[in-house]
């Protein structure tokens, strides 16, 4: 019986396993292959050797990614908690409200941010009416981070919320009964229990933030080159697949390492929650 059920389970999962092997694993080999070849197809280490030149870009991307992720976390955690306290119906509405903006092209939404953040834009016009001097926001690193936070915030809220919604509130009550004040309940009960959601939120915000390319061009005024921009330029503008692949490879390795560290925090088999 047991052996048969194992065979059946493999059979059911087999389309996926074939799919994953073909379209998840195989493409990665191409990245590796292109990283170590030149345009004629011969083996070379030149691509890897040019990489140090892009160190500032890498560091800037990572730093922006870290900041955007932290801001998302700070914004999302209380909101997720707030939503999880609502009635089932309200919770559903909130979740849909969070997902709704994602149904419009992020290109267009980023474009709208330009109109908002400009020196002569909507926010500054509004501030001007209140008698406040305009604040220079667009074309700064802050604007790029804002764009990242804006675009990826839902990916932080949703996993944290879905963990919190399933929290066993008898535990929280027990905590309170044991004399925990608000802060202690939060620290000893809610935060530890929502760690899996936080971990997967961090992954889902950090990864796209580090590798994004459109946001920095539009909101950063082209002066805050991120690694995604450089990779995109290699593939689209310079037709240098090899350097582009090498950069991608490093980015990938970097993210795998940070994710491995992250997963260390969450018990379980390193699977994520949405």
């Amino acid at each position, binding site marked *: 019986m047991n052996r048969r059920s194992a065979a059946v389970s493999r059979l059911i999962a087999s389309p996926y396993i074939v799919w994953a092997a073909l379209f998840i694993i195989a493409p990665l080999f191409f990245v590796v292959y292109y990283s170590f070849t030149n345009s004629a197809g011969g083996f070379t280490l030149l691509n890897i050797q040019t990489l140090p030149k892009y160190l500032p870009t890498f560091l800037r991307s990572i730093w922006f990614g870290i900041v955007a992720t932290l801001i998302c976390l700070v914004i999302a955690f209380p909101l997720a908690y707030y939503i999880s306290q609502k009635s089932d119906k309200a919770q559903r509405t909130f979740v849909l409200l969070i997902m709704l903006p994602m149904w419009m092209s992020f290109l267009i939404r980023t474009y709208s941010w330009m109109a908002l953040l400009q020196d002569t834009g909507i926010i500054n016009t509004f501030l001007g009416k209140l008698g406040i001097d305009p604040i220079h926001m667009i*074309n700064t690193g802050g604007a790029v981070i804002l764009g990242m936070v804006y675009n990826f915030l839902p990916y932080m809220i949703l996993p944290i919320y879905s963990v919190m919604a399933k929290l066993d509130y008898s535990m929280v009550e027990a905590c309170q009964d044991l004399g925990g004040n608000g802060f202690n309940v939060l620290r000893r009960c809610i935060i530890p229990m929502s760690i899996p959601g936080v971990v997967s939120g961090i992954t889902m915000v950090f990864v796209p933030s580090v590798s994004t390319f459109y946001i920095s061009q539009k909101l950063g005024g082209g002066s805050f080159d991120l690694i995604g921009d450089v990779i995109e330029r290699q593939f689209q503008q*310079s037709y240098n697949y090899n350097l582009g692949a090498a950069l991608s490879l490093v980015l990938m390795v970097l993210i795998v390492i940070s994710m491995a560290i992250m997963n260390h925090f969450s018990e379980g088999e390193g699977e994520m929650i949405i």
Partner: protein
Amino acid sequence: MKKISAVLLALVFALLPLNCALAAGDADIEALRGTKLYVYNWGEYISDGEDDALDVNAEFEKRYGIKVIYDTYDNNEVMYSKLKSGGVSYDVVIPSDYMIERMIAEDMLEKIDYKNIPNFKYIPEKYRHLSFDPANEYSVPYTVSYVGLIYNTKMVKEAPVSWKALWDTDYENQILMFNNPRDAFAIAQSILGMDYNMESDVAWRAAAALLKEQKIVNPVYVNDEVFLKMESGEAALAPYYAGDYFLMKENNEDLAFVYPKEGVNYFVDAACILKGSKNKRAAELYINFLNEPDIALANAEYICYGSPNEAVYTNPDYELYQNEVLYPEEGAFKTQLFRNLSPESLALMSTLWDDVKNYIPAGNSYAALFFGGEDNIPGADAEKMTAETVKYAIYIGIFLLLVIAFLVFRFLRKRYRERV
């Protein structure tokens, strides 16, 4: 009014498809009915029926019964990468001059049979046999225009006459710059009095140094955001394509345009047929169609770039008839066409561009470097780059330290508790 007449004219054509224009080769054109034609063009680069203008593709489909599959791209390099990747194939494509030369060199284009393009007669001699296609075997010009300097008259002290205005510290934070290497380098090369197509490392590095120098005014690198930023008065100066100036002026009366004295880039986008086209005859039909006077007129008025079609620019009803920005007097200023560069120069340009984008100005070495034409401001370049790197490295380091400290703290606390 003339738009209506154009529509009427088109209707007449549409109603009498067999009587007009199809005298010769009727049979083989008829045979094309029901086939498909794959066209790859710039975005927003064809009259699409907006504001009662002619919908060119729909018109073509109606007249010849050939289905047009129409896709768009945002720049030459993207188009080239896409085609070169080997994953897509099209029939008609409309690249710019230097890209046509490159595609000819790499055997990506098919020779056009000009017998099938009778409307080529509207293209005057000055737009034929251009440097990118000297024998004129591969291309039929679609638009011609120049790069110029757009400025906001309310924001500049005096009307600029030189590209150097883009380096003027008075307009710090208000200067826009091309976000693509070729156009950006061309401006620097104009100032330095260089040929845009020079195959010399030293020359490219000199231009790159000048572009780095521009960082002192904190230019904003833009593509289409130029519209938004010039229209709202966010920026004072921007280099862009002449025709687009009209589109901006519609939304901001204060804008003005000038061709800087150092000379400008002159560009020609031309229709070509790709090698391996499965519907070459239809492709020629399409290119011919684009050059029919009323179709070309509709396109010229939609795109607002100059038209190489005599029937358009000599037509007094043309909205931009004899417009001095689009059709300046010949020889009024120096113009240069882009040529295809060697792979080495292209690679160099692309690396130098990455450098420019990541460069942080070192201070006021502005005047000294302006005409210096040397890559390395002694030490400063490297120094500043390092400073930037170090800054982020320190930030990330502190962050990692905090994380590690937290982990160690937790670990120690756990140990302590276990002991207690």
